[in-house]
């Protein structure tokens, strides 16, 4: 398996491997490699590939810490299929109007939590620095953690679920790109 494995458009969502058989250090490596490729895809403006990091019925959500502590379900973004993610990308590319911008993800504390057959749960911490092209200044846009469920497919690890829980509940101007 090489990094290309994460760049194929739509892969099989069929689980292919029992991850319990994989040594912990190798699983850690695979998870980190997925996270790295995922961030690179968004940070390098290859948004069309973003949905392909998920299985077809994968789920993606951004919620705020303050809503979760209140037990409230509101989200800033939520997609319950890769198709819905592709729709969002088409909308961002062709419909929505927003200032040209880019993210730089810094991800750390990647912690493989729990392996259950072909699924693995993982947590990471992130900060996202956003640069609006007109202003040219990188500013902290969001910080928080991700709670992920990953699954090993024929195309490598993919997200079955990614929950982004942001510490900030203030969003400056608008939120365009996924985290």
């Amino acid at each position: 398996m090489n990094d290309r494995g994460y760049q194929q458009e739509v892969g099989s969502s069929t689980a292919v491997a029992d991850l319990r058989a994989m040594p912990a250090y190798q699983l850690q490596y695979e998870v980190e490699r997925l996270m790295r490729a995922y961030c690179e895809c968004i940070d390098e403006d290859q948004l069309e590939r973003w949905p392909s990091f998920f299985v077809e019925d994968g789920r993606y959500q951004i919620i705020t810490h303050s809503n979760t502590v209140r037990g409230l379900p509101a989200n800033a973004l939520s997609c319950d299929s890769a198709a819905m993610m592709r729709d969002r990308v088409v909308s961002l590319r062709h419909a929505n109007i927003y200032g040209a911008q880019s993210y730089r993800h810094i991800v750390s504390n990647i912690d493989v939590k729990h392996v259950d057959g072909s699924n693995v749960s993982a947590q990471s911490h992130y900060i996202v620095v956003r640069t609006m092209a007109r202003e040219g200044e990188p500013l902290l846009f969001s910080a928080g953690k991700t709670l992920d469920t990953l699954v090993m497919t024929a195309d490598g690890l993919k997200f079955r679920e990614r929950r982004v829980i942001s510490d900030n509940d203030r969003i400056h101007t608008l939120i365009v790109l996924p985290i």
Partner: protein
Amino acid sequence: MNSQMLDPPAEAPLQWPQREEMRVPYRVFTDPAIFELEQQRLFRGPHWSYAALEAEIPEPNDFKSTHIGDTPIVVTRDKDGALHAWVNRCAHRGALVCRDRLGKTEQFTCVYHQWAYNASGSLASVPFRRGVAGQGGMPADFDMHAHGLTKLRVASYRGLIFVTFAAEDRVEPLPQYLGADACAMLDRIFNRPIRLLGDERQVMHGNWKLYSENTRDAYHGSLLHLFHATFGLYRASQKGGSVMDATRRHSLLTATKEESQDQQALAGLRTYQSGQFSLEDPSLLAGRPDFNDGISLVILAIFPNLIVQQIANSLVVRHMLPRSVGEMELVWTYFGYADDSEEMEGIRLKQMNLVGPGGLISMEDGEAVELVHEAIVRDGDKTSYIAMGGKKGEPQNNLVNEAPIIGFWNYYRKAMGFTG
């Protein structure tokens, strides 16, 4: 009310060009002296400002802290269930008394010197008031009743809590302040108990009145927000219109789902790309009517700081918090009904993708506010030109007009004393 009797403000003199509300001098968006005057004449003036939903403080001893204009306040429900509001500033040395956004307490104790207040804002206790062993302490004539928090008047309509700094004889009772059309729409939307779904907070780097204009502007809907057009769901020919209250400070935009295709009107629009794209997962737009009147879009803007929204099944109160002349925060509070099924709640949560600061059909509004604010930094006496639908702030039976914006400025000019 009484606005005709206001003196022209000496600290922020402003000539309103030709006394025409369709031409708005850009200085009203950028001058700190005007922002100061707005605090006095609008937010602390004869108006009811939205502060909270009763559903946010449903039980005795619940509270919520927020702002009216830039003044920090707290809205409380006392142990008997009655609502109160007060300025969040200790009567002793001015510290913030309540430091949490939401919570539950019987007593509010300032951390600095532990002066304690009850839910109504009355002073309950002062530590070492009698001194220690006969030494120190407050003067003998210290009157606990004279040192409470600054209390505001509170009124609630259909579970929306409004507060005012104004005495009873300076502002109408809340239902009259809102007017019949706004009350009828609130009766319609808040027809049964609601369930909170959560908040989003959006900071816009622009003056709060630019957003007030945006929410009274039917014209931009199909031009700035291109989601529907791009996916062949064009809406400009939707039926709809705008009404205002007698003072024209509030605005109610509505549209129905019924479409009257008008291909000629659409010709030449860069935004019209019917059929070019289609949604792979149309469940995003799936919904069920909440109301049987066919109204699918409501933007109810209540002066000075509230917007109530129904877009399909997305129900929201948007609370405007002006932070400075050049910045505002918008708190989006999403809700459904207490009797929503799990499926219905799922529909509302999915439709959150369409609205709010990341919403596919509305994300552009923050950008629009900032694009204006950035461009009007100088030339404060230059003006905008607001004439779509005629130059008057009259009710309109279409969605290509700017009439409620003119109505807003007409009221604003009087309320601020800018007779020009």
